[in-house]
């Protein structure tokens, strides 16, 4: 297992460095290879992780809980790596190489975080995800991206400052029992949990929920999320929503384990319930009236992180299993949704849903797939999210949390209506008879891949107001859009294939999750309940 872990840690980082030095096409190939390889390696890790945790080289650790989050991240890394090959068509070589450098480092940091055995190293890994992803959000070089990246880096870094304070208090608590040279290893802290002083552990957990909760997107520290997820390039948005939020939630779960061992599960569960319900409430209301398709999906992510928090708050074994299944299923569904949104953005030249019409006809593959992704996010069967949310609600009812379970169901239903009303108009409403050329708003709202086609520098054309020369399929779309006529057809097959893979995963998780995955999730849920 050590060899597998080391390869998972080394390959994306090596690929990041190489991808900056080679032509963009080669960078795309090695990124896809890295993503697929990492996914395969994580699958290979599952049997050993299910049998029991193992620590290597003092600072690396893999157990069932970390493997669940690795699975979600690795799957998205592979899928979005393929998607990015099509998304970046027409981009300059320089832009693409910078993108792949950041993309691979981002994926590396998210894969590294669950493999850290220490709360301190976990914090460092998540801090690295923040700084790298902030640059990726800004890479589009639009006014919106600049604003979103500044808000993101400031708010998320401040949140991680609180998370560092939480780590310090956890160290202080651990040092009272384990000695001053404790290295904040997670398992020893859990093992001696009943002997840790309660006050610093309580404070550490609160600060961790507030601090890491900023990265998770829990209300009220979520304000950066809709901006960053909507303004980032679509592959980055997919990773932010599908993988980064979950990785940050993983950090909260580690503090949860320590807090539950010290304080009992009542206090940590109550804390998570408050944040979860608040997140669900705000997100379910804010999905109504959204005009930006990616902003809509960003609020959906806030909703789903609220569901995770509420699920953990229920505490029942089936609810915890549902939470962990939800992590994987949400990664697939949200990745699909963002990838679909990215196709729409390229096709229509805007993220504004009022300007998108007749999607099912104009995008014969991406249209239906996007609809299915939205249905999956709304927990319609037979998607894995239906199964996971069913388990969470069942767990809530089983543990006597009737009110919270009822609130969860009501708010999820409200969110479904919000998602459905927005997306059905995009997909089903016909193009008006006398349609003017597609409204694209200000230059800053046009995706840079449209504005920068054929130019020498990404962003330079639209900032200077120049009209770029055009080539390739995406360019033809731009010309068609300019003339007010859109022809049916997909921008790129690379942007469809990973969505099909995500759909297959969702159906598999919903209809018949593999036995090994079920065992992994069962073992991870047992860990959350206090088993070693």
């Amino acid at each position, binding site marked *: 297992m050590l060899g597998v872990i080391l390869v998972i840690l080394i390959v994306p980082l090596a690929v990041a460095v190489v991808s900056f030095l080679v032509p963009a096409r080669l960078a795309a190939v090695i990124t896809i290879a890295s993503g697929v390889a990492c996914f395969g390696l994580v699958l290979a890790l599952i049997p050993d992780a299910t049998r029991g945790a193992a620590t290597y080289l003092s600072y690396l650790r893999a157990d069932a809980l970390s493997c669940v989050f690795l699975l979600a991240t690795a799957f998205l890394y592979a899928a979005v790596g393929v998607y990015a090959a099509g998304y970046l068509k027409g981009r300059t070589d320089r832009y693409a190489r910078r993108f792949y450098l950041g993309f691979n480092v981002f994926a590396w940091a998210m894969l590294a975080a669950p493999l850290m055995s220490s709360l301190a190293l976990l914090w*460092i890994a998540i801090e690295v995800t923040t700084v790298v992803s902030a640059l990726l959000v800004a890479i589009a070089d639009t006014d919106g991206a600049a604003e979103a990246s500044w808000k993101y880096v400031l708010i998320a870094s401040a949140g991680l400052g609180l998370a560092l304070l939480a780590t310090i208090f956890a160290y202080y608590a651990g040092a009272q029992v384990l000695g001053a040279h404790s290295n904040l290893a997670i398992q020893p802290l859990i093992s001696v949990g009943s002997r840790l002083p309660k006050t610093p552990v309580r404070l550490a957990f609160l600060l961790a929920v507030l601090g890491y909760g900023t990265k998770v997107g829990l209300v009220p520290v979520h304000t950066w999320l809709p901006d960053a997820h909507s303004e980032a390039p679509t592959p980055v948005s997919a990773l932010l929503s599908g993988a980064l939020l979950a990785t940050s939630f993983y950090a909260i779960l580690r503090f949860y384990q320590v807090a539950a061992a010290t304080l009992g599960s009542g206090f940590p569960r109550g804390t998570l319930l408050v944040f979860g319900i608040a997140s669900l409430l705000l997100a379910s209301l804010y999905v109504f009236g959204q005009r930006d398709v990616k902003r809509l999906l960003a609020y959906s992510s806030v909703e789903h992180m609220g569901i995770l928090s509420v699920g953990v708050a229920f505490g029942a074994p089936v609810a915890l299993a549902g939470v962990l299944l939800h992590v994987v299923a949400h990664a697939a569904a949200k990745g699909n949704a963002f990838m679909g949104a990215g196709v729409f953005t390229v096709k229509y030249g805007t993220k504004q849903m009022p300007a998108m019409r007749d999607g099912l006809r104009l995008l014969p593959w991406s249209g239906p797939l996007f609809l299915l992704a939205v249905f999956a996010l709304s927990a319609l069967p037979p998607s894995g999210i239906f199964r996971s949310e069913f388990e969470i609600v069942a767990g809530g009812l089983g543990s006597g949390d009737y009110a919270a379970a009822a609130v969860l169901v009501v708010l999820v239903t409200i969110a479904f209506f919000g998602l459905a009303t927005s997306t059905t108009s995009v997909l089903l409403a016909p193009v008006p008879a006398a349609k003017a050329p597609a409204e694209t708003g200000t230059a800053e709202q046009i995706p840079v891949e449209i504005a920068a086609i054929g130019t020498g520098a990404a962003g330079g054309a639209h900032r200077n107001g120049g009209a770029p020369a055009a080539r390739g399929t995406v360019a033809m779309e731009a010309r068609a859009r300019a003339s007010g006529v859109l022809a049916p057809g997909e921008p790129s097959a690379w942007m469809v294939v990973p969505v099909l893979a995500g759909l297959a995963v969702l159906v598999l998780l919903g209809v018949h999750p593999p036995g090994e995955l079920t065992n992994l999730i069962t073992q991870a849920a047992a860990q959350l309940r206090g088993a070693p």
Partner: protein
Amino acid sequence: MNAALLALGGTPPLPSPGQAPGVYQGAADVIAALMLLLEFGMLRQALVRDQVRLYAAQSAMISVLAVVIAADRNLPDLYALAALSAALKVFAVPLVLRRLLGPPAVEETRGVAGSYTLSPASAVLASIVLAAFGFFCFGSLGIHSAEVPALALSIAGAMVFVAFALMIVRRDVASQAIGFFSLENAISLASLVLAAELPLLLETAFLFDLLLAVVVFGMLIRAHHSRADSLSTADLTRLRG
């Protein structure tokens, strides 16, 4: 005697009432108080350049405290940490920030000088309230021993709140960045008070992580300036709802 007790693995007793605190406790409390004062100074300064100087001074206080702790508790790793911290936070970070700001005369034209959301007096008053809240919150935790000066920990809590206030009341990216860096100083103070014996490897990793954050902040500040020809955040209002 405290050193002997520590060497034997014992815990030095708390000073009894009326007894003067030891060197470590006294130094930690004084340095923490000075750091809080410097934080209020940063809040009050109109020019970012002056804020940077105060930040450098505050960071120097952290290094001094690390040396005091190292001497008092015989922790040689802390000398290395003090040197690293000084190199990064007293010299490198202020240098990066001064380069981003450019010549002093330009600062006023970049929408930076005096860019408050509240008036300076109101900002200070609000921060005093927040500082008091933070001070008493941390003080009420009851975490104290001869190794954990309660006053210094409470002041660290106050500094956290004032740092957030600095990020909120200033309307320019440079001041907001300095607010974040001073938040890191507050956490460093708490770390020295609570976790002085954290393995050096982890402390160093934290410092280099901060360096990475500084670089990214610098890049984004530069990107913001190149787009808006200003450091003001007043125009960052397109993304709402």
